[in-house]
């Protein structure tokens, strides 16, 4: 497995922390998934200090924390949010999200590259939420990113890998770069598919948090990731257009 800014993850699942039915279910789902990374955010603090109890819960998970810049639409917003996140969470890791389209939450890749340059120059270890565009991927690497996170499908859509061809091309174009499918996952089969393409990790949130049984779904996602990775390493056969009998023809009785 490739490392993420020098960190080798024991488990290729990165799991979001939003939308669970309760904090207890969140904690159980994380345990069941074995996820190595938890994504978190920053939002306005209320007078009751809601953020403090959430942070206590996440610290107890004892896994890597990846703060995001979710909801940011400008370079300035994203950079300031990243700076605030670094102080609060005590990590240089930042999941850089710069949203460019309201309905699809598609990343604004132009501002993304600009923000990545600024943050990398400030010592951040940037995990950019991007598309499968190869040229943008190259620009992000030139900006200093050492990980790329193309979307599978729009955030929260559960549509899986919308452009498998493009994602396969990205894997082939950047064979040594850690690649993470970020967003669009709905089912364990999507996770398997991503891992079978040779992706190094999968980041998801809604598919687990909004499942009928988030804890069981978290476990299913973990098993799917393991199966997909093993498949990738085992060298799956190429599909054929025509049938080829598996039982030997030689020796068949003449009846």
């Amino acid at each position, binding site marked *: 497995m490739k490392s993420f800014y020098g960190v080798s993850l024991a488990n290729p699942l990165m799991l*979001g*922390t*939003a*939308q*669970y039915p309760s904090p207890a279910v969140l904690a159980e789902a994380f345990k069941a998934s074995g996820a190595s990374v938890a*994504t*978190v*955010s*920053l*939002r*306005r*603090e209320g*007078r009751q*200090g*809601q*953020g*403090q109890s*959430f*942070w206590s819960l*996440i610290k107890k998970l004892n896994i890597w924390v990846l*703060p*995001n810049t*979710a909801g940011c639409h400008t370079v*300035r*917003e994203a950079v*300031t949010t990243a*700076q*605030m*996140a670094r*102080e*609060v*969470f005590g990590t240089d890791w930042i999941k850089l999200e710069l949203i460019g389209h309201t309905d699809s939450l598609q990343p604004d890749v132009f501002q993304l590259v600009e923000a990545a340059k600024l943050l990398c120059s400030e010592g951040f270890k940037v995990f950019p939420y991007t598309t499968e565009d190869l040229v943008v991927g190259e620009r992000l690497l030139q900006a200093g990113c050492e990980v790329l996170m193309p979307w599978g499908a729009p*955030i*929260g859509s559960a549509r899986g890998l919308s452009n498998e061809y493009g994602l396969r091309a990205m894997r082939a174009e950047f064979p040594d770069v850690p690649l993470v499918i970020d967003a669009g996952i709905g089912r364990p089969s999507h996770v398997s598919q991503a891992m079978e393409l040779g992706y190094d990790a999968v980041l*998801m*949130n*809604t598919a687990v948090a909004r499942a009928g049984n988030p804890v069981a779904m978290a476990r299913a996602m973990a098993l799917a990731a393991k199966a997909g990775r093993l498949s990738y390493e085992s060298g799956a056969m190429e599909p054929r257009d025509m049938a080829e009998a598996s039982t030997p023809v030689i020796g068949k009785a003449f009846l």
Partner: protein
Amino acid sequence: MKIVLNGEVHDVSARTLDAVLVEIGFDGLLATAVNGDFVPQLERKTRVLKDHDRVEVLAPMQGG
């Protein structure tokens, strides 16, 4: 002095960012920004606020 903190207007008597946070009742792990610029924790005691400044006080929250 009137400031806008997390989108709400507050009439505060404290002058520095650090003191304003205490006056309004914030505590714990927080990050701050004034007029869109990050203000590190170590600078809050010396950061003097002006009338109509926009202050953001953020805390850890669920995220995907």
